[in-house]
């Protein structure tokens, strides 16, 4: 099996139980768990985290990120073609959790058909249709990180549209 190298680096770290070492570049911008604590509100209060600058992205090359904290690995993608929900000048930038919503395995990105794939039980998610499960065992589509881009091209995540695997609150309390 060939696995995408960028995401695979994340997998090895994650299976050891922590992402801190590889979060590197983004760690400084991620709120600590204390800051990101859920408030007593109807919905959790999401942090706005800077993930990268548009200039850092290469078309169809996944960038490892994490959101809303270092224990929730994700992928930031510039797909090259506008998609619904995409941001940036080309409307093609999206971000997803890479934890398979079936059993929490780390997924790898296939640049060939722009999908995220789970090595555990072969679920597949389409990065071009909002993370729709193409085929698989998960009972929800993939959690997508909601993005915004500022005038400087900085990309921030501001929210999530599905429950991330392994947590009963998207922002841990």
């Amino acid at each position, binding site marked *: *099996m060939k696995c995408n190298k960028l995401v695979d680096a994340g997998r090895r770290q994650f299976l050891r139980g922590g992402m801190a070492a590889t979060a590197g570049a983004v760690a400084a911008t991620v709120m600590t768990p204390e800051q990101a604590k859920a408030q007593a509100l109807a919905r959790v209060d999401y942090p706005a985290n800077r993930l990268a600058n548009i200039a850092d992205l290469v078309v169809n090359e996944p960038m490892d990120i994490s959101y809303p904290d270092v224990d929730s690995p994700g992928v930031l993608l510039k797909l090259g073609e506008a998609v619904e929900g995409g941001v940036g000048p080309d409307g093609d930038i999206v971000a997803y959790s890479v934890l398979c919503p*079936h059993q929490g395995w*780390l997924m790898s990105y296939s640049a060939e058909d722009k999908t995220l794939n789970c090595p555990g039980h072969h679920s597949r998610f389409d990065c071009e249709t909002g993370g*729709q499960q193409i*085929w698989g065992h998960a009972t929800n*589509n993939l959690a997508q990180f909601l993005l915004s881009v500022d005038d400087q091209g900085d990309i921030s995540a501001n929210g999530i549209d599905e*429950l991330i695997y*392994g947590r009963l609150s998207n922002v841990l309390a």
Partner: protein
Amino acid sequence: MAYKRQIDRLPIIPSDADEFNVTCHYCIVGCGYKAYTWPMNKQGGTAPNQNKFGVDLSEQQFQDSEAWYAPSMYNVVRQSGKDVHLVVKPDANCVVNSGLGSIRGARMAENRPSKVTGTQQQRLSDPMVWRNGVWQPTSWDDALDLVARVTAQVVQQSSEDDIVVSMFDHGGSAGGYENTWGTGKLYFESMKIKNCRIHNRPAYNSEVHSSRDMGVDELNYAYEDYTLTDTIFMVGANSMETQTNLYLNHMVPGLQGGAKMIVVDPRRTLTISSSEQYAGQENVLHLAIAEGTDMVLFNALLTHIVDQGWINADFIAASTFQGDEAVAQDSAYPAGLGSLDYAMQTCRTTLDEAAKICGVSAADIQKAAEWIAQPHDDGSRRKCVTCYEKGIIWGNDNYRTIGALVNIALATGNVGREGGGVCRLGGHQEGYFRPSEAHVGRPSEYVDQFLIRGLGGVHHIWACDHYKTTLNASEFKRVHKRRSDLVKDAIDGAAGGTREQVVDAIVSAINAGGLFVVDVDIIHSQIGQNAHVILPACEANEMNLTSMNGERRLRLSEKYMDPFGNSLPDALIAAKIAQHMERVLREMGEDAYADQFQGYDWETEEDAFMDGYGAAHTAVTYEHLRAAGNNGVQEPVVGYENGQLVGTMRLYTDGVFTRHGREDGKALFCAAGWRGWQAPGKAREQAAHRFWINNVRANIFWQNQFLDQDNDFVQDRYPHPFVEMHPDDMVDLGLNPGDLLEIINDNGVTQGMAYPMPTLKRNTVAMVFGSPAGSQGNVVNPGVNELVLPDYKHCWGDIRKISDATAQTRGISFKSHEIML
């Protein structure tokens, strides 16, 4: 754009939440789940002592965690009259699934009816009677009085043969030992109904007659045999897609442990592509035979195995019939049965002959024979587990084809031993316990044709929707609607009349060719549109329900919520019908007949269980099954010792075969003579149309599509029934992904959505079976075998575009289903 639930957190299960054993009621595998309920005004916390898992939920849980559940596993339901929180999540301690959830079972909670969260509001809550042009909700007594009066009057004026019954015979959802007994006692003991059929076929019969006639029960192994075997031989089945957790939790460990995999299927399935990933491509052999030619392949495999001397001579001598012919071919036996030598006189087929007919290479057939039976280098025998399902059950020449497959398992002695077995994979769980059905006869009546011919006057339907799941469905629907409309018109014409006048009007309409329809179901089904009385049933976990899975594992799936509205377990509905029949018959002065409807004083489903299955298996009680938990006990249960039920891990370990009822205990071989297309009309249809219309299943809604028609996650993925086609064929027909199309032949028309699938052969399509929005059965001809087994799988048609992709279909993903690692 994909459907999202926008749920960012879920209530935490408190440490003192109530806990229930749940067996998923959708498919045959019967995965173990646990249900947790707790009061609305309470919640657990993230600290280990505040939640059911005893772990710190303020931290991220890692892969395969027991301490996580998806939004689909949560709901708010009614329990003992109060709203409660509900979580239903996979049970890590169940040996069937080891904590794996499927895309179906892990939505059980979400697919519960809830007035609080608004889920499954399609569920029926009250009996309804056709009154003044609409279905009016009413009381049980009112609805059942009408059912009993019409049914009794029709029987009295003619006979029970005018009562036609469609009823489930399976376990799990809608079935189970409680409900098959309730209905069975009503129709086979109080009455002797012979014009009856099962939910997915037009007669009351076995799907695997030949295996049983050969002495081999079709569920004879244990799931662990897949991990103990040398070779998995799968025919006409796609377990990654359907029996998902059987594949992932038992077959995959076998493949990873070195087992080889042979898959016989005209199309490249996901089971094949995933097996290549897990086992390596060199250990997976796909025999992509021409449709309907399975029997020839099996005969060639058997011939090669016999000629190479790879048979298990000791087993054959000890456990199989040693004469010539044991059972002659006749109207009840579509092939002769006897010794191996006897069968070989008919079955003998060379590799080259098979290669020519099946369209695969002789070398590949030889390789398959080697993987099945060639002894290891040290001389020890290979273990091979054989599994099959609808590809041949609903295929060409059911009896002989399945017989030819079982021949191979018997010749190699791969039954009743570790790593062996020759089993159907199954659809629903099993849960059959009824009085004798001997009066039904063999072959049994082709009930759809009986109704189409205008016969029968009353149709009782139990959890069957022939609009979606019968063959020749276009004509069946046309006639069923016309006949039931006659009765609706009669009821409308008698509006304002007394009950007696209404019943008289109904019976007059029946005598004029009408059909009085009683539909018992959990939702208002499509055939229910023709009903005059609709009776609301409940499902597993809204009642206690016992069933057994594909390795005969018997479990009690416990009640954790109230039935929706005034719905009831089928067993208790059957009891109520019997009680009303008795009352009405006494009023009619028919005391002797009324007496036959006694013995239904059941308060609960447990009473029904103990009246039927429990009476015949005294060790098996609800109390003992509760204690056995989600691992239950494998049937047959042979005792109760040291506080535990004692079961049977696999059948026939003693080499004595009993399913045919022969006193000698010897298995029989089947003289499976090839005769091309067995069912009438198939050859002509194949010649007349371009596309082979195969019907297939999808893991997302296999066995629960009736609920998923009201599930947003599923409807978002497949807003129309999919019709998978080769992309080049789509180009030919001017079809883009998501375009709507019609499939047309002389039998009827059906519709769906074009879905590109590059792995398909040209000029074949794979259409989902049983869709509420497009019945594949519309275009299947009425052809059946001698024992009235339908050949759904072989159907040909032409395709026409209806419409460009809709806003809904344009937004879905059409990428390959195969994993890209």
